[in-house]
């Protein structure tokens, strides 16, 4: 045993519960950090308890037993009475219900906030797209309008040739076509643009009539999405357009 001798006598008094004042404070402080003295204290308490047995011999009066058993019977630990259990069950259910409602309430509020944020994001995104589309349309409209100046640079002394430029986005079916130097057509005729798919028949891609300067355009004709184009071509068709080319193309595109 490696208990600390300087605390030995005080530890015995502490086991009796009769150590007071600073000595008690010092022993308690030491006990907190000393397992050896804690073990010795437990043994000393056992020694103290032995003294109790030296007192045995007296018997309590018989009525004391009856009194205790009567008190015990009065405080019998029966299972909780039915109404109490029912009340407690009902009360628990009410609490559970209230808690559930509260949780649902907060979940709904949270979901509501999230949905609002999502709607705001979508609205904002949609507005941005609208704005971009508007700008694109204004740009195209401006570039294809009568105020736009067009310059075509060709070899000197060569007469200007009809030219067209198609920009096509297959994924969304978006097409912009600008043409210049187009010969004027009689009123019953029109130019028609064709999308020549990788496989299959030419698909109508809009009609246009050039202005006095020979410029014309087709912007976002109704085309299905996802059609891969091999190239584009322009034919002269009746003014209402055709479902299939009725003449040889006057222009056929090359990638570039």
């Amino acid at each position, binding site marked *: 045993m490696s208990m600390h001798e300087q605390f030995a006598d005080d530890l015995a*008094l502490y086991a009796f519960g009769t150590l007071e004042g600073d000595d008690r404070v010092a022993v308690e402080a030491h006990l907190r950090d000393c397992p050896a003295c804690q073990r010795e204290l437990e043994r*000393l308490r056992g020694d103290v308890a*032995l003294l109790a*047995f030296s007192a*045995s011999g007296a018997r309590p009066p018989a009525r004391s037993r009856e009194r205790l*058993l009567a008190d015990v019977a009065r405080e019998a630990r029966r299972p909780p009475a039915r109404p109490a259990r029912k009340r407690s069950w009902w009360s628990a259910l009410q609490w559970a219900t209230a808690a559930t409602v509260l949780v649902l309430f907060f979940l709904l509020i949270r979901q509501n906030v999230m949905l609002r944020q999502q709607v705001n994001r979508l609205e904002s995104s949609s507005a941005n797209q609208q704005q971009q589309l508007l700008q694109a349309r204004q740009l195209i409209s401006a570039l294809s309008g009568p105020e736009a100046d067009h310059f075509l640079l060709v070899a000197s002394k060569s007469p200007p040739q009809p030219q067209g430029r198609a920009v096509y986005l297959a994924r969304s079916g978006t097409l912009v076509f600008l043409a210049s130097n187009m010969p004027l057509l009689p009123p019953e005729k029109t130019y028609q643009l064709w999308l020549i798919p990788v496989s299959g028949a030419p698909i109508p891609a809009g009609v246009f009539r050039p202005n006095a300067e020979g410029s014309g355009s087709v912007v976002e004709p109704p085309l299905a999405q996802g059609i891969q184009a091999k190239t584009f071509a322009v034919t002269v068709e009746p003014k209402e357009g055709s479902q299939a080319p009725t003449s040889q193309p006057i222009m056929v595109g090359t990638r570039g």
Partner: protein
Amino acid sequence: MSHTASDVVPTDAMLLSAIRSGDEAAMAQLYDRYSGVVYSVALRIVADPAVAEDILQDLFMQLWRHPGAFDANRGSLPGWLAVISRNRAIDFLRKRRPAVELEDVVVNVEPEMVRGAEWSLVREKVRSALAAMSASQRSALEMSFFEGLTHTEIAQRTGEPLGTVKTRIRAGLLALRKACNR
């Protein structure tokens, strides 16, 4: 005690377990086993049978209400009951409210020491050891235990030096320990 065959003596742990289940007969059996030591200790201290009986009643009712307060792993039930009885009686003498709750008392007496017939053997060993001590040493132990006097109070009463009283008390406890082979 209809549940217990006459030739089977339930252990304290079995009785406490039954008491936890609300077995009133087990409570009666435990009372029969240990009311003597609880009452004797209280009576020795307060010297008033009515007060000693109140302490006895109160202690057993608390055990009935809180059977889990006694931890069988940390001591013997009679030792535990005796020390609580002593503490309550001294509190009464000193007009104090109970200073120690049931749960706070740890009495490290090996259970096998105080089981059944052996427990009267322990009593005899303690009495013999006390008889073998000097009167002043026995008196110092008894004043500490049965009167709850501090060593200062004992020194004042006996006119002995404080250090002597302290040393004597510890030596007396160690002599008891040795006599009971603890």
